[in-house]
């Protein structure tokens, strides 16, 4: 500002001599330089342009990001060719089909993918019939668990009630099945003898039982609910009003139907939440409870595998075959028992001497003979397998027994949970909303499959706001569905935050120690300069290179080593004797290095004789050799077979995962931390160090008590930069563990709570996936902006947290000097 004021003053100054002198000295150009301060405008302009670009980018992301979830109106377009299109207008633009001809075209999100095979449709203005653009009052937008959105007008709401199946009906149906199966194997004559029985006795009996059951059901319904109509579904699949059911026809279901858009919508709104809760409960059972059981079984299986590796005899394969054989024997025995039961029931129902009873006994005997042979074969096989196990330890090793017990328990519990799931499924499947699409087709949607539905054209502003926030809530707390283009991104948020935090934990100590050595301990010279230049250049290496390194080093070498020892990592271990010899050498060299180091430190200040100076150098060389030997000893140990050998050949840590991704990114951000720390440390005035030394502090005490606290805000700045860089990085993550859909979170309530080996989702990768890998990229595009907005928000929050921390530290040291 003051520069502008100066300029103004100079311009108005009448000073003649001034102007003349300036003119003489440099001509017009230099007068401009002298008076106009062009550099102020130049630099200010550059700043303004940069700010405008950044602000523009942010504004675009914020606008598009926040607009994604706002519910639009649903438009119905009648076309000249008689078709109709209904949906949300997602783009509206001027189109030039041929040069000089301009027209308007609209992109309509039509949904209904399973009917039309497309999510979007372009409509030119000429195609639209005159007056063909309407906003149907009851047009409904349905967001579904599968198949994307559905646009339609509700026609009816149906609650289906299946006819209950009685024990008698079940028995008759089983008998009928038994005879049908048995008859297929008979010859012509025998079959002809039996057919009248099946067609004239068995089937009519079954039908009679079914009709009785239906009549009972109808009686249960009592009167027809108000505003509803009862439809019956016949066994033939035909649907008729309940009053028009042909006599003697069996009925499978009764539908309580409410027709009319408003009635259907009211009923939907009334029932939807309850059904969704049940569906959520079902998903929880499927995912959580069944998952836990599977893990339990897997743990027992891995224990057997570990024991197998330990005793070097086959255990797992025999144990699993034994399990399978026992199950098959049990199944065969069950079936035999069922056959006997049917034969017995036929004998009771139709008399012991009837054709049917004799045929049933014959079928049962035939099947039993076949089953007996099967069972015998399985028994022999089982004995062979058991013998293999007995070889390992008499009666089979205890782990195998535990495995069998676990498998049995898991099977029982799984069956129970499956039963619950089936019950919920049957209950939630009773409710369906029937909609008419724009082209008049009818479609019934099960309420369990509907995430959210609303009549978009009837909503007021506040209702729309409600939908908006409900979508945001789902986005922030839900799991993705529909190839990530719908639903939430909680796993990605979680993965990004956890990865960034672990990365910071890994990179800050390393970077700070390295920088301290470079600034405080190392003698300045060509080597230190070379190291510094290399570190700075490391920051310029393309990040994908770090990804390749992380994959090759962390995953395939370190990870494979952790999984299965040196062999698995492709390292040939030393024989035991050589290993011990090397261990001895390491001990000797380490002791030598330590002693020499002590000696070289003990002398101080005065009289650096040549040998004393060399002692320090020799000590460092010895330390290096010792370190190399130490690494070699660990890498080539013959005594380590990995922590996860039981899982092989499936890798546990020998593949991309959260831990390796974090470490790769910490390598990537190491230069940032080192450079920032070096700057901060060198900015600590030497007078402080001198003061500390003069008080009798040692070097380390000085660093710890004076240099580090004073440099801490600068170090935190480095951390902030590193976090910002790391959280936004995508390329290396694609190689070391980020996936488009991770079934499990990297940190959860399951022991040991942190699972560094798991794949994870990451917001940056998610953006890439949405933008370029999505099968429905048009629908995913708005989500790109929303996800970007969220990523920026998360990075900014992490940084703000660090900045707040830095501010606190600065206040603690109470000075404005930083």
């Amino acid at each position: 500002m003051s520069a502008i004021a100066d300029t103004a003053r100079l311009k108005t100054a009448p000073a003649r001599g001034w102007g003349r002198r300036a003119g003489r000295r440099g001509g017009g150009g230099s007068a401009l330089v002298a008076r106009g301060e062009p550099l102020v405008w130049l630099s200010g302009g550059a700043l303004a342009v940069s700010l405008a670009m950044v602000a523009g980018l942010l504004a675009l992301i914020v606008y598009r990001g926040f607009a994604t979830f706002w519910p639009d109106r649903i438009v119905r377009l009648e076309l000249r060719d008689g078709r109709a299109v209904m949906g949300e207008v997602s783009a509206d633009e001027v189109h030039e089909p041929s040069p000089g001809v301009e027209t308007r075209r609209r992109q309509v999100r039509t949904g209904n993918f399973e009917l039309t095979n497309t999510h979007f449709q372009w409509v030119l203005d000429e195609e639209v019939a005159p007056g063909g653009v309407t906003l149907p009052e009851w047009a409904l937008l349905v967001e579904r668990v599968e198949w994307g959105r559905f646009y339609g007008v509700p026609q009816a709401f149906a609650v289906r009630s299946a006819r209950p199946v009685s024990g008698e009906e079940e028995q008759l149906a089983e008998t009928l099945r038994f005879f049908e199966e048995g008859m297929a194997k008979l010859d012509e004559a025998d079959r002809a003898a039996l057919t009248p029985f099946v067609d004239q006795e068995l089937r009519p009996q079954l039908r009679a039982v079914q009709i009785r059951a239906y009549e009972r059901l109808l009686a249960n319904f009592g009167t027809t609910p108000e505003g509803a109509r009862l439809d019956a579904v016949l066994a033939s699949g035909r649907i008729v009003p309940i009053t028009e059911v042909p006599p003697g026809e069996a009925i499978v279901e009764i539908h309580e139907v409410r027709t009319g858009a408003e009635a259907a919508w009211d009923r939907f709104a009334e029932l939807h939440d309850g059904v969704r809760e049940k569906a959520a409960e079902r998903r929880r059972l499927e995912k959580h409870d069944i998952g836990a059981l599977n893990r339990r079984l897997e743990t027992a299986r891995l224990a057997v595998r570990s024991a197998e590796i330990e005793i070097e005899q086959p255990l797992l394969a025999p144990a699993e075959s034994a399990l399978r054989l026992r199950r098959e024997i049990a199944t065969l025995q069950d079936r035999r028992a069922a056959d006997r039961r049917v034969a017995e029931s036929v004998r009771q129902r139709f008399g012991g001497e009837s054709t049917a009873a004799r045929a049933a006994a014959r079928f049962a005997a035939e099947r039993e003979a076949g089953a007996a042979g099967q069972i015998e074969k399985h028994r022999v096989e089982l004995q062979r397998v058991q013998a293999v196990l007995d070889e390992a330890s008499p009666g089979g090793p205890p782990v195998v027994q535990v495995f069998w017990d676990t498998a049995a328990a898991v099977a029982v519990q799984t069956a129970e949970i499956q039963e619950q799931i089936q019950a919920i499924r049957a209950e939630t499947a009773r409710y369906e909303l029937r909609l008419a699409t724009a082209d008049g087709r009818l479609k019934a949607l099960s309420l369990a499959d509907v995430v959210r539905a609303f009549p978009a054209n009837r909503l007021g502003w506040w209702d729309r706001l409600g939908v908006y926030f409900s979508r945001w809530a789902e986005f922030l707390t839900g799991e993705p569905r529909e190839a990530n283009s719908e639903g939430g991104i909680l796993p990605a948020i979680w993965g990004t935050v956890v990865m960034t935090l672990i990365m910071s934990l890994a990179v800050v100590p390393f970077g700070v120690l390295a920088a301290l050595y470079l600034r405080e301990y190392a003698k300045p010279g060509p080597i230190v300069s070379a190291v510094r230049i290399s570190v700075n250049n490391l920051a310029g290496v393309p990040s994908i290179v770090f990804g390749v390194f992380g994959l090759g080093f962390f995953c395939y070498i370190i990870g494979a080593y952790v999984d299965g020892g040196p062999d698995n990592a492709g390292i040939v271990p030393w024989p035991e004797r050589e290993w011990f010899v090397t261990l001895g050498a390491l001990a000797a060299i380490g002791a030598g290095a330590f002693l020499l180091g002590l000696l070289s430190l003990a002398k101080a200040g005065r009289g650096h004789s040549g040998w004393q100076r060399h002692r320090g150098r020799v000590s460092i060389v010895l330390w290096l050799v010792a370190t190399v030997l130490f690494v070699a000893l660990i890498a080539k140990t013959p005594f380590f077979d990995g922590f996860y050998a039981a899982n092989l050949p499936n890798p546990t840590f020998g593949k991309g995962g959260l831990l390796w991704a974090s470490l790769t990114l910490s390598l990537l951000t190491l230069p940032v931390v080192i450079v920032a720390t070096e700057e901060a440390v060198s900015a600590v005035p030497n007078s402080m160090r001198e003061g500390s030394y003069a008080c009798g502090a040692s070097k380390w005490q000085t660093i710890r008590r004076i240099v580090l606290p004073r440099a801490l805000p600068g170090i935190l700045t480095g951390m902030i930069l590193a976090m910002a860089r790391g959280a936004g990085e995508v390329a290396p993550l694609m190689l070391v563990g980020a996936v488009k859909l991770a079934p499990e979170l990297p940190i959860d309530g399951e022991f040991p709570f942190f699972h560094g080996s798991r794949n994870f989702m990451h917001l940056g990768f998610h953006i890439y996936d949405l933008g370029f890998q999505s099968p429905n990229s048009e629908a995913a595009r708005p989500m790109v902006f929303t996800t970007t907005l969220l990523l920026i928000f998360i990075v900014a929050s992490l940084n703000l947290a660090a900045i707040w921390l830095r501010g606190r530290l600065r206040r603690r040291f109470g000075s404005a000097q930083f």
Partner: protein
Amino acid sequence: MSVSPQMRPQTEPSAPPAASPPVPAPTPRIAAASAAPGVAKGGRGASRLDAVMRGETVPSEIHAAVAREQFVLEVQDFNLWYGEKQALFDISFGIPAGMVTAIIGPSGCGKSTLLRCVNRMNDLIDIVRIHGDMLLNGDSIYHTRVDVIELRKRMGMVFQKPNPFPMSVFENVVYPLRIDGERSRKVLDEVCERSLRGAALWDEVKDRLHDSALGLSGGQQQRLCIARAIAGEPEVLLLDEPCSALDPIATGKVEDLIEQLRGEYSILIVTHNMQQASRISDYTAFMYLGQLLEYGPTPDIFTKPHLAETNAYVTGRFG
């Protein structure tokens, strides 16, 4: 050791080499001074300064009164080189116990270097070589077996610019105890109060002991540094131009403080300011180009020095 250039004493490295060929401007004035009447033993003055400039070692003029004192610190034939450049030449003198001894001399004469040699701060500079020894209460300072850390704990040092640490006033004062691992709150409180009272700062900061020391004024900061220096009960207190960065009022306070500390501590002070030296010191050493020219009781040095060069310097005719 990575020590950046500013860690070096600021005056010495620029000192002219011992055998610098061109004779600096002061020469004629010194010649004039030596010709001035009433100067004792003035006849040899010019040749003595010339000899110093030629790099010859001239014997120090040490007053007989000094020899009667008991020394806390003795410097014995002390020489120091920065790389190839010699900065101190054969310096030998003793610092009397319980007294204030000032070292004066023109810029670049090696005052600060000498002071920093006492607590071996010059160890931090790689290119420094020394020859000779110093004795602190009879114990060698430069013997190979001496533990520098322990040695420094026996002395306190105050620098030109106040350098309080970025921590609270309290932590600043008890820093020497903290690095010794003292944890007892009682001991720390006691030492803090005693040192701050000793540095005449207690009344000003007793209510903000736990505020940052960087919030104090310059003079307060310097007295805080003195408090820190005396917290460890040093055998000798080294003050390196403690008032050069302070305004006159703060300077006055620090000088008063030195008055108070006299007798309790043995103080060695380097100063640029001759009035200050004459006001506060008992003994004064005059150094020139790395050599100790004259050393004696302060009144004698300022009123009837044995050497004409000293007279010329204290009367402001050169330097």
